[in-house]
């Protein structure tokens, strides 16, 4: 089947299998920053924004994205334009193996879009669906709070 969607701001027309999940469709089109961690909706490694809301793309069918807007990690920054959230994760050494990081960055984006001044408790709640075995979550929590400052700074 054919689906039409907006991926990182670009209109796309993709040929998909009816049973294909969004993670697969994205990765098949070269967007491999979206990871396969559990393929079960539990770990958050595959997080993308669907119309600005975070979803686990491993349990969203590609067909369900038809007519919607998808933002992946690749849409948040590139080597020349580092997104302040990414800069915050790097500065806090919140990136160890980095497999969970794209999902966390995407989650932070959604959080800050809706709540520009999160508390530590907000940051914890937001990251809770993102399993990270390397960092113990301590530095990612700090990174989210620092990211809020940086995003604010970038806007003013």
């Amino acid at each position, binding site marked *: 089947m054919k689906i039409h969607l907006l991926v990182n701001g670009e209109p796309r027309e993709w040929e998909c299998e009816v049973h294909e999940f969004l993670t697969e469709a994205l990765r098949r089109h070269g967007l491999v920053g979206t990871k396969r961690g559990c393929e079960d909706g539990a770990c958050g490694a595959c997080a993308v924004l669907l119309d600005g809301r975070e979803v686990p793309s491993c349990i969203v069918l590609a067909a369900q994205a038809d007519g919607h807007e998808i933002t992946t990690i690749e849409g948040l920054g590139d080597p020349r334009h*580092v997104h302040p959230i990414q800069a915050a994760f790097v500065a806090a*050494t919140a990136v160890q*193996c980095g497999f969970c990081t794209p999902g966390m960055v995407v989650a932070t984006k959604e959080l800050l879009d809706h709540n520009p001044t999160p508390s530590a408790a907000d940051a914890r709640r937001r990251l809770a669906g993102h399993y990270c075995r390397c960092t*113990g979550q301590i530095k990612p929590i700090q990174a989210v709070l620092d990211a809020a400052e940086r995003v604010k700074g970038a806007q003013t």
Partner: protein
Amino acid sequence: MSTPIPPNWDTGADSLDRIDSYQVVGRNETRVDALKLAQGRGSFTDDIDLPGMLHLKMLWSPHAHARIRSIDTSAAEAMPGVVMVLHHGNVSRIPYTTAGQGHPEPSPYDQFIFPRKVRFVGDRVACVAAESAVQAARALAKIRVEYEVLEPVLDPHDALRPGAPVIHDEPEAFGLPDYDKAHNIAAAMHVEHGDVDAAFAEADLVLEREYSVPYQHHATAEPHIAITWLDEDQRLVVRVATQVPFHSRRILARILDFPLHRIRVVKPRVGGGFGGKQEILLEDLPALVTLRSGRPARLCLTRAEELASSRTRHPQILSWKTGVMRDGTLVAQELRVLANTGAYGAHALTVQTCTAGKTLPLYKARAYRFDMKTVYTNLPVAGAFRGYGGPQGFVAMECHMDEVAEKLGLDPLEFRRRNLIGPGHDNALAQALGEGKEGPPQRIRSCAIQECIDRGKAAIGWDRRDRLRSTGPIRRGIGMSCLMHGSGIPGVDMGSAHVKLNEDGSFNLHVGATDIGTGSDTILSQIAAETLAVPLEKVVIYSSDTDHTPFDTGAYASSTTFVSGAAVKKACEGVARQLREAAAEMWRVEGDPCTPEDLHLERGAVRRPDGRSLSYGEICLSTFYTHDQHQIMDHGSHMTFECPPPFAAHFAEVEVDTETGAIRVLRYVAAVDCGVPIHPQSCEGQTEGGVCTSLGYALSEDFIFNDAGRLLNDTYEDYKIPTALDVPEFETILVRSYEPAGPYGAKSVSEIPTDGPGPTIANAVAHALGIRFRSLPLTPEKVRKAWLKKEEARQRETEA
């Protein structure tokens, strides 16, 4: 092998002042790979797609113990898209161990690519390769297997019962001299030091208690995965998420019976390992498919397959016995371990050796005894897991130390202080507990455990301990533990590095050391930059590719900074010497001679005492194109008989809801002496990550089986690892010390944090409730039950 302890060992205390002169080491440099990972550009194994790639799916054993009578794959092979089906009938049968250890591996050779007898639910039966993963999965259902179901062994005690089913009855399996497959014994050891019985006889108090610790799964973010293909020279390329690329190449060559020089193992970015990827777990299968079909092949485990069929932490039953004098002086310690390795004996000996080796020597005693059996069962397979026996052993020892202190009426902290090992002391058991053989002797040089205790104690507010709430439904408690680990495997681990100079004064650094998220690419680059007196960005690192980097044993045993880092330093020192010589030669030709010894390296240039300088770029251009033409480059290898332990003191404050049994960890303090922290934030990150992994061990992680040995909690919904909502407020204190044996004074930091939370939390809960738990995890159910029992007993007492 007995290496004498050098007489001139200093404890390194006066070398601490060198730290402040470091330019790159000891600073929180931006990690060399962080940005690309945060942007999703990090290239993991799965991030490539090759034309014509075949997808593999596994058929796993549904039985805990069964002989395969027949296997019929004809219907599966006829399914659309199926290219081949591999099973025991069409692959070679060479015994090996999946344990990615040095050669010869001290683990039993008890596995084959496919077994004829399956030994746990989740064992390999067959593998389908098809054009797509969906087609491969569909074909699995068409494989017909006839099993002769055998009686399973589902408990380690049962494995030792006379007449127990023999799990490894195949004639080919073999191991070290204590290997006894006829009695389900994968490994055994008995060690005595001093006159143990006499020491116990003299003790004022002898206490013995039994502890038990559960299965734990690594839960790496990235599952096990390998992609293989033939390159244009028909060589086999194996792109695999591994901690041990060189062991992988060596073991693959043997079991595939394919020349080693025609295999290239490449480690791309790895999404966490923690020991789980110190196994040659799956790359043999895509490799076989590629060799037979000539096509690229991919095998990636699902999360459920990860949980059931990869590797785990060895569950153990530990009996700890101490003899102690009334004043708190320990005289004798005895540890007996019964460990469960599951169906195969990966790391069966050495994990358990470390259970004793990391724990017992922390406290001085006149005599020690260690007795261990690791048994086979028809349960999931254990293996290497960050901490490597330490987390198990410290649960027993550090809970036990609290129990002894309580019996003696001593402060648990002061009791420990009195007996702790310190600078200049010998590790009494180092020789007896080597890596499958006698180990080299160890004398402690750097050791800041007492300062770790001081600072941790202040940070947690230990002195509030007596005033914490001890009435009402919510109870608070504070607990602690003292820890020690190792830095590499002495006399075994070896790392090497190669460095060469470029025209812009940058350097290519090639290392066998394997960054799996540990930060070693950054840390090794820092060591190189420091030695060569350049900023970090002038070092271009490339790691772990058996074609293009020199050898390294791999990312395990807390060895990378300490062992591989020293190799990098040696290689860079060689380059530094060559730079001085080349500069002296350039000045000589200019008619202005000097001696290389008078020159020094600073800010990317070779400098004379009078301030004149030649930049590395100028030197490189000259040596490439003009005069005395050669490539400035060097290599270094490092192996050492020393294994300096990092030390730590962990403290936790917990809140226990006696009505629900739920434990909340409010605050955690980890004070660690890891020598000089090369990258302090990374040392904190290692500590925080290691502690949180073991918070799961303490509180929520366990394997639950049905009575046929099937793992019931094989999803993340049911296997609970700590999330951001569970982790406590955290303080990491890096207590500085200088380790003379390590590069720039560094010791290891990666494994020691996993040792602490089990006992620290159990001790805090004991303090809160007055109930001693001797088995992990401390689930709400377990806590609530124990509380009710205690309440009932109290009521009976008041009634009586």
